């Protein structure tokens, strides 16, 4: 028998996480099938470029969170980070296809996959953290903060929550491995490919 807490954990966190990962896999298979069916395999070859740009663009959130960038709503940047990395990963997966040619790009693809799953775990943990810091909301209301200010404050409380800090210690090294491997692949393409 499931307790209400377990049910809410499943419904609010594990189910959306599972759906997002499954959707990424299904979208990749369908996209790859369509590209082959419509004789557009060459499109997949170049999808790596917009995919990489989307992933790089979505890193703006990290800069905003670390206050390298001062402007913009941090929650919106987070949404863009989530959407950008999911869509970018889909494009890179379509770009990779099921073609086993060289080891380095495949290591980069695997690292990207681990990175995406880690990111989704982070999203799940952030949701959990938000629930934990909801009690802080009343505290901020009592201090007379505006609604927008309260939302911002609760958000910062949740991203700095202990579980999130621990998760970040795993997510960042995974990202660095992915970034270096992807960079190796990109450099090798620039080095050997004839852009014409």
């Amino acid at each position, binding site marked *: 028998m499931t307790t209400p807490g377990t049910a809410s954990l499943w419904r609010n966190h594990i189910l959306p996480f599972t759906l997002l990962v499954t959707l990424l896999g299904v979208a990749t298979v369908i996209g790859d099938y369509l590209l082959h069916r419509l004789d557009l395999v060459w499109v997949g070859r170049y999808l790596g470029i917009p995919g990489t740009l989307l992933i790089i663009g979505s890193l703006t959130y990290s800069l905003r969170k670390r206050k390298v960038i001062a402007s913009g709503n941090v929650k919106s940047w987070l949404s863009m980070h989530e959407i950008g990395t999911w869509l970018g990963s889909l494009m890179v997966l379509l770009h990779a296809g099921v073609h086993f*040619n060289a*080891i380095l790009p495949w290591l980069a693809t695997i690292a990207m996959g681990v990175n995406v799953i880690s990111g989704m775990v982070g999203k799940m943990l952030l949701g959990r953290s938000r629930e934990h810091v909801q009690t802080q909301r009343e505290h901020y209301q009592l201090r007379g903060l505006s609604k927008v200010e309260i939302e911002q404050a609760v958000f910062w409380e949740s991203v700095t929550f202990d579980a999130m800090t621990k998760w970040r210690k795993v997510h960042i090294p995974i990202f660095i491995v992915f970034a270096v*491997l992807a960079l190796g692949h990109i450099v090798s393409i620039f080095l050997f490919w004839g852009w014409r």
Partner: protein
Amino acid sequence: MSKTLKIVLAANLIVLAVLAFVHPHLMVGPGKLIPGHSKLEKDCFACHAPFVGTTTERCTTCHKPGEIGRLTTLGQPIQKPLTSTPFHQRLLKQDCLACHSDHAGVKRFRIKGRFNHVLLQADARKECQSCHKSPKDSLHQQITGNCSQCHTQEQWVPATFDHAKYFVLDRDHNVKCVTCHLRNDYSLYTCYGCHEHSSESIRREHIEEGIRDFKNCVECHRSADEHDIRMPGRRRDGGKGHDGKRNDD
């Protein structure tokens, strides 16, 4: 990030970087090279210029355009040439990558068996039989040259042979060639290959109309349209015709 983790990460990435330089064909090469170039698999820059890619100039350093299809890169005569006639000498310009890709992963993106004849000089484009063998069927064995009358240079089928000039293939005659042209012998045909026409019923109908010479059906019937009957050499009022509606050629 702890210092130990940083060292482990850095060490792993350095190992991968070293492997990329020692075994580039495994680490970064887009698939196996063609057998003729397999000895070059660790020497990427034999064919690739840094940041430029593969150029025709690099290919023609070893593969002299005048010798392609005739001599190997070592100057030996080719024992079993892939084409009966060397044609690289008759290309409009030397652009090796327009047709060739040496890595299996890159070849995948090329459409197999598709050669763009526009790359050939105009006079070479007309000499189909110097590269292509004529099919063995009886139709093509009767024909020499003039392939472009029926076929395009983009693809062999569909051919533009106008069957309607001989007989219109309407929805009732949308069948395999062999139904009418037994054993794919296009010099002959039969109208008795399907259940609709039998020699007995055809004989009876024509005798009723006073027609005794009805062996060559398409001489009068160029389509299934019963109003479109041509009777060469016979007058319009010459005896009873099919419904009295004849179109004499």
